[in-house]
């Protein structure tokens, strides 16, 4: 669902000639894998999932996607804030320590 037409790699300019005239963005933030920020991760037990959509709705990082009618955590970007686990009405999301 992360629909963006822009480039998804980090942009580095080799020369001023490549720098845009007007200071403006040329790419998306998808290069920035914010999953590296977390030390706990949400784990969804879909067997108890009510498919209510609340976890998807309240994720500040758009890191819960809907696949085949069920929520799926996008661990590349999930920051581990815990809102999904806190708000889940059937308490089927557990926040688990990241293995180091």
């Amino acid at each position, binding site marked *: *669902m*992360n*629909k*963006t*037409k*822009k480039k998804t790699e*980090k*942009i580095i300019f080799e020369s001023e000639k490549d720098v*845009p005239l007007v*200071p*403006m*963005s*040329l*790419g*998306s*933030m*998808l*290069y*920035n*894998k*914010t999953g590296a*920020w*977390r030390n706990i991760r949400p784990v969804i037990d879909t*067997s108890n999932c009510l*498919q*209510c*959509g609340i976890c*998807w*709705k*309240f994720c*500040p*990082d*758009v*890191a819960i996607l*809907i696949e085949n*009618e*069920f929520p799926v955590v*996008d661990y*590349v*970007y999930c*920051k*581990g*804030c*815990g*809102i999904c*686990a*806190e*708000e889940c009405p059937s308490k089927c999301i557990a*926040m688990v320590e990241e293995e180091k």
Partner: protein
Amino acid sequence: MKKEKTMKLSLPTEELMSSGHLACQGCAATLAMRYVLKALGQKTALCIPACCWSVIDGPFPHSSLDVPIFHCAFETAASSASGLKAGLEMVGDTETTVVAWAGDGGTFDIGIQALSGAAERNDDIIYVCYDNEAYMNTGIQRSSATPYGAWTTTTPVKHFKNRPKKDIDAIMAAHRIPYQATANTSYPEDLFRKMKKAKGIKGTRFFHIYAPCPTGWKCRPEDSIKLGRMVVQNCMFPLYEVENGEKYTINIKPREKKPVADYIRLQGRFRHLTDADIAYIQQEVDRNWERLLKRAEC
């Protein structure tokens, strides 16, 4: 075999905000943006002054939004939006919704002149203030939106903020703009509905969105949504709309007002408050609620 039903989501699935942005864990300001953009769609242009979102969006040359953003000077959210709207219309684009997207500092304090000017002229913009109740981007300094009793780096515990939160909604109502509303990221469908309604109105529309900040409020990141619910249930930040500065519609009237103490206890920025302080806060919340109810009756 479990019977799988289709998910019925309460909001459109299209995202105009991507992952990878720089917001703190549990930031409600990003939820505010996510919901507002779902309501307004891709034909939107944002003017973002200095505030958390100037950084959240990502560094040059990257952006996490699929709508154009004009990063503007701190005081100029409203004046930039007015100018942008005028410019777009003069080059033939009368459809793009121009939104000024500012924090509480850029709205209540340094940006209030430009906001008042735009509102008085009834410029055709939507002004959104996401309120995390302090200058968060610069490291949690006090603003006039900081609530009574809060610790911030410029109102340390011994001199906690002892002035009430500025009533920006009353100030905007005094401008008699066609539409304004308070909103809350814990009630996304309400915010979505109001923003859709605002989109169809011409003139200055103002949104005051309550946006918990775990970093600045010293609360748990997972409590962001819970705090937003509490603040409506205890009437500290009521959800209401005002049309033309006169017609007040309160969206949620809790049958049983919850005590503010429960809300206060969840945030480290209030940890130093005594029972007497909390009682005072409760009294002020009650008074403000009564005043709002009276306005809604007229």
